[in-house]
């Protein structure tokens, strides 16, 4: 007799989603989280009265969350408050232009007429093609199991209208946006989102080329910080008896004859279950928790063939003054070519890019309660990768230098006297990130994502190599991101309910 029906390792969004749905279906479910808070990359921690988001700073494409809470018998607003953020971004371009992109499509058309009249027709085509694609693919592709060719074929047969969009997956991000825009500023405004999926515009899948459009369907910030999302999912699950334990690091999977039957914790204790779900990086799951000796040779070769997603340092700043910004997110952009250049000539070469700041998030604009009265928060990151192992150096040594570079950029773009107004500042390097969440090499989206590592080429939600092992989160399905990892959690739960429900 097992202690639990389901054990979920890791309380990230994927893990919590699967756990809550398993609990809803009547399975006795336990989540084990190694850190002292839930949410993983989508979480919030408090220092000196400031509440900083660990990683994710916004949620766009909220349909998977809506669907999840429906499946849990409620609606989003029963569990968390999502504050709409408009404008979507404020831009500072490489040629010094400053403008904001509003959510409203007609208002955006007016903006395009002003900044890039030659691309108005392209913008209309982008909207026409992109909006119908987003609408038709949302439920069908995001929330459907897609581990095998036959599942993909069934999906296509049930939803023939989506087949016309299949070539988009095989195109590149820059190929897609270049088919609509010529103006360098318009290209910049739709190119940097490829790094939201962890790849440069020349390598990322074309389907992510439409992120810039999906943002017009609304972007949201949860009241109380990004942890509001995992807290909401956890609360809904706990209504059905879900148990969550923090400060519980799982060391190994208990295995017999190629079948998982529980976990062994760092403190030596063992807990058994009918099935185990891992929300960890899939390489960690297979090569550390399961161990190569428990895997067939092909499985070791397969899992070792992936690379980790990019790391990205983050800087958390507490200010005693309101910053001079216009939107929740300010983007300091550069040309599309230089976005590829950062990948090829810096990241891949082990060189830290010259800029420390390109995406500035101002969460206290949406929710002033995140900071003490009259104070503000800025979380910012270089929206491009920085190497995990800088050539000839290491991040612990470089931290002070990086902080200084970040403050200088803050002074250039946001607050000329920033130094006098910083009450708190912390740099989270790739090494810190690895230590906090145990993400190998500080990778922020699990495994690298391109057309050769997505959907049926990403590790399966229902393991074929280990019986009764399921995977969820950014290493599976459609990769990293709040909506995609929630979707992965739903997909994994669908497999579990099919097998055990």
């Amino acid at each position: 007799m097992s202690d639990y029906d389901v054990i979920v390792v890791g309380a990230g969004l994927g893990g919590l989603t699967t756990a809550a749905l398993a609990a809803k279906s009547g399975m006795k479910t336990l989540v084990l989280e190694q850190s002292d808070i839930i949410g993983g990359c989508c979480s919030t921690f408090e220092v000196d009265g400031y509440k900083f988001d660990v990683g994710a700073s916004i949620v766009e494409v909220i349909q998977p969350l809506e669907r999840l809470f429906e499946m849990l018998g409620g609606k989003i607003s029963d569990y968390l408050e999502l504050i709409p953020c408009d404008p979507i971004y404020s831009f500072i371009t490489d040629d010094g232009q400053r403008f904001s992109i509003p959510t409203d499509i007609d208002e955006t058309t007016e903006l395009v007429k002003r900044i890039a009249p030659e691309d108005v027709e392209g913008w209309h085509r982008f909207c026409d093609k992109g909006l119908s694609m987003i609408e038709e693919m949302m439920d069908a592709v995001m929330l459907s199991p897609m581990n095998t060719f036959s599942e993909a074929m069934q999906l296509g047969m049930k939803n023939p209208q989506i087949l016309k969009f299949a070539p988009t997956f095989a195109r590149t991000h820059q190929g897609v946006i270049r088919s609509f825009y010529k103006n360098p500023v318009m290209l910049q405004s739709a190119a940097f989102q490829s790094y939201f999926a962890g790849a440069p515009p020349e390598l990322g899948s074309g389907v992510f080329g439409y992120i810039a459009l999906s943002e017009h369907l609304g972007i949201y910030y949860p009241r109380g910080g990004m942890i509001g999302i995992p807290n909401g999912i956890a609360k809904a699950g706990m209504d059905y008896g879900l148990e969550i334990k923090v400060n519980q690091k799982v060391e190994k999977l208990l295995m017999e004859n190629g079948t998982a039957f529980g976990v062994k914790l760092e403190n030596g204790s063992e807990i058994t279950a009918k099935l185990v779900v891992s929300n960890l990086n899939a390489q960690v799951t297979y090569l550390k928790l399961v161990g190569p000796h428990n895997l067939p040779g092909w499985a070791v070769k397969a899992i070792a063939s992936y690379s980790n997603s990019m790391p990205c340092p983050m800087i958390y700043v507490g200010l005693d003054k309101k910053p001079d910004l216009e939107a929740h997110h300010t983007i300091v952009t550069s040309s599309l070519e230089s976005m590829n250049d950062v990948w090829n000539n810096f990241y891949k070469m082990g060189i830290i890019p010259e800029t420390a700041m390109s995406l500035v998030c101002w969460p206290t604009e949406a929710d002033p309660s995140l900071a003490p009265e009259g104070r503000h928060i800025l979380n910012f990151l270089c929206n491009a990768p920085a190497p995990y192992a800088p050539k000839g150096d290491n991040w612990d040594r470089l931290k002070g230098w990086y902080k200084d570079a970040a403050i200088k950029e803050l002074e250039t773009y946001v607050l000329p006297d920033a130094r006098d107004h910083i009450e708190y500042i912390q740099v989270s390097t790739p090494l810190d990130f690895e230590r906090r969440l145990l993400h190998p090499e500080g990778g922020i989206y699990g495994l690298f994502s391109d057309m050769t590592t997505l959907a049926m080429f990403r590790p399966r939600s229902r393991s074929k190599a280990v019986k009764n092992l399921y995977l969820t989160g950014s290493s599976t399905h459609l990769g990293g991101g709040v909506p995609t990892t929630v979707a992965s959690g739903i997909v994994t739960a669908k497999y579990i309910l099919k097998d055990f429900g």
Partner: protein
Amino acid sequence: MIKNLKKVLPVLVLVGMVAAWFQASESTRRYLKHIGKQVPYLPYRYFI
């Protein structure tokens, strides 16, 4: 005639690929190289 075509076809495809490679931008070449390196792993990735 068809026999001859069958012989010539692989050569034509190869010539076409070489020509396309030389016409491609640096960025496209990097993309093709990247995908080329991944393709051998796809049969393994499919099953994991």
